[in-house]
């Protein structure tokens, strides 16, 4: 049996990235993700990789763009305000179909906001973020173990679909320490015939997101959205907890899901048929899994650390066939099991 190691979420993520074959990291310090960059600075060179502290988040994501164009596995990480700065580069990565892994260890916003945990970048992560028609695959870890496991998945999905994967963590899972079983250092190799390595004896290639012909750009977007549709059909992931007979369904991701899980247990002890669906992929949103339960669920409660963002996806996924209420805290305040239990009992 593999041994477990006590690690911070940010460090587990970084180590998992190295074990996934990521040899290039470009970033800029910002709380609460800085340990991730520090870990990379210490260990990536030992693995024969390149750690570079960029002059800004914009520069960092542009370096990611260059390294990805050269066909290498590459990652950047930041926290909310820094992720806003990266949106330019993320849109260009999307516009060029270049795979990359972007980590957002969220803090409260808007603006400079605070440094306490938050989930208020849900919309930014799942609805685009930068300009233009595109999606990121968004993964939401709720444990240190998942910080590692979803990183392996993030690199795999990015290469498999030539998309950008965002790991949407928060300050809590980033900072907390838990035992983690690190993944074996293996990586799936993906053929990247599009990568720029110099033309050699062949034809020269170019990578661009520019397309001045409207028809061409339209077709490009249509093709990409066929890919996204396929991703929506095949890559939905969620954990279900006590959902078989649940009448009240909590939907929560990340740290909110861990809090909600305790509330569901407490509700069950009181004889209330509560259950939890924890989306692991926020895009694609696990709507099929939610829909499967609408026959026995009488109402949904969205538990999130923001003013109510994911709640819209719950309503859309279920065609508003059941009432959906919001149980939330924001600004860096974390919702308590008691508050969630009150929402379950409240019958709102």
């Amino acid at each position, binding site marked *: 049996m593999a041994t477990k190691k006590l690690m911070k979420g940010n460090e587990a993520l970084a180590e998992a990235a190295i074990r996934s074959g990521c040899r290039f990291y470009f970033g800029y310090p910002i709380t609460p993700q800085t340990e991730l960059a520090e870990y990379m600075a210490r260990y990536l060179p030992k693995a024969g990789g390149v750690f570079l502290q960029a002059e800004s988040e914009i520069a960092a994501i542009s370096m990611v763009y260059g390294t990805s*164009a*050269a066909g290498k596995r590459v990652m950047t990480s930041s926290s909310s305000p820094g992720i806003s700065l990266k949106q330019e580069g993320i849109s260009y990565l999307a516009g060029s179909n270049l795979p990359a892994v972007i980590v957002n260890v969220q803090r409260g916003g808007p603006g400079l906001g605070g440094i306490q945990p938050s989930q208020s970048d849900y919309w930014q992560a799942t609805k685009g973020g930068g300009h233009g028609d595109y999606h990121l695959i968004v993964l939401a870890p709720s444990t240190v173990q998942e910080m590692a496991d979803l990183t392996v998945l993030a690199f795999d999905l990015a290469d498999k679909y030539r998309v950008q994967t965002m790991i949407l963590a928060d300050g809590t899972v980033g900072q907390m320490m838990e035992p983690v079983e690190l993944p074996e250092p293996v990586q799936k190799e993906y053929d990247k015939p599009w990568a720029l390595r110099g033309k050699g004896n062949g034809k020269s290639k170019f990578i661009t997101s520019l397309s001045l012909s409207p028809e061409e750009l339209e077709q490009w977007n249509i093709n990409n959205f066929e890919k996204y549709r396929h991703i929506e059909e095949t890559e939905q992931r969620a954990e279900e907890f006590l959902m078989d007979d649940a009448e009240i369904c909590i939907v929560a991701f990340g740290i909110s899901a861990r809090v909600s899980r305790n509330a569901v247990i407490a509700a069950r002890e009181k004889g209330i048929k509560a259950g939890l669906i924890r989306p692991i992929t926020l895009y694609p949103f696990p709507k099929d899994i939610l829909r499967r339960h609408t026959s026995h669920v009488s109402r949904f409660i969205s538990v999130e650390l923001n003013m109510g963002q994911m709640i819209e996806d719950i309503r859309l996924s279920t065609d508003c066939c059941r009432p959906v209420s919001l149980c939330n805290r924001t600004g860096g305040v974390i919702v308590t099991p008691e508050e969630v239990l009150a929402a379950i009992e409240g019958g709102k």
Partner: protein
Amino acid sequence: MIVFDKPKCLKDAPMHYCPGCAHGLVHRIVAQAVDELDIQDKTIGVAPVGCAVFAYNYFDVDMVEASHGRAPAVATGVKRADPSRIVFAYQGDGDLASIGMTETVHTAARGENLTVIFINNAIYGMTGGQMAPTSLPGQITQTSPYGRDVNTVGYPVKVCELLATLEAPYYIERVAVNSVKNVRRAEKAIRKAFQNQIEGKGYSFVEVVAACPTNWKMKPVDANRWVEEQMIPYYPLGVFKDKDEQK
């Protein structure tokens, strides 16, 4: 015997540049350097946003198009991914000295083993002739219709002088392409900037003072005269840093 022909590193595609635009000439010089150094197979270029955005249609090497101003950062990513590749960024004055000044300065400060070619024609060409960070004092543009007023928008940025204050850059030179004599110097400088990279010497930067006849609203021949009489006095040609000479 052929004395002069199109470099093989330039594709046959007709260039979209305006008549007399210096971009085509500088493309030729870059392509010629790549040919002469026999590095076409392993060269990767980074195109800017601006008039040279379509540079990848002309250079017959692998190319990647950066977002506005980020070419040095993208080039850093490409070079770090595989240091055996020869990587160059090709940028105009708005791209390099305005929106991308941060990336420009820090890439130079890191001493990245890259070649950066900077076209300074004192105006934004692609968007139709607005004021650039390098527009001359008093220069009339679409966004300085009464002439660049240094009291409100300050003075043009002298990029070579600025970068030469940094420790890491290996080679910084300013050239022009308004005359045969200057073109010859430009050819030599650009070849050296690539040669330095091949030898792993570090960051090499060549600023090319160049004409934009269309947006200057001049005939190409007059534009080249304006380069000589107005641009070069403000942007003196020459070597600002060369660690070869310091040895």
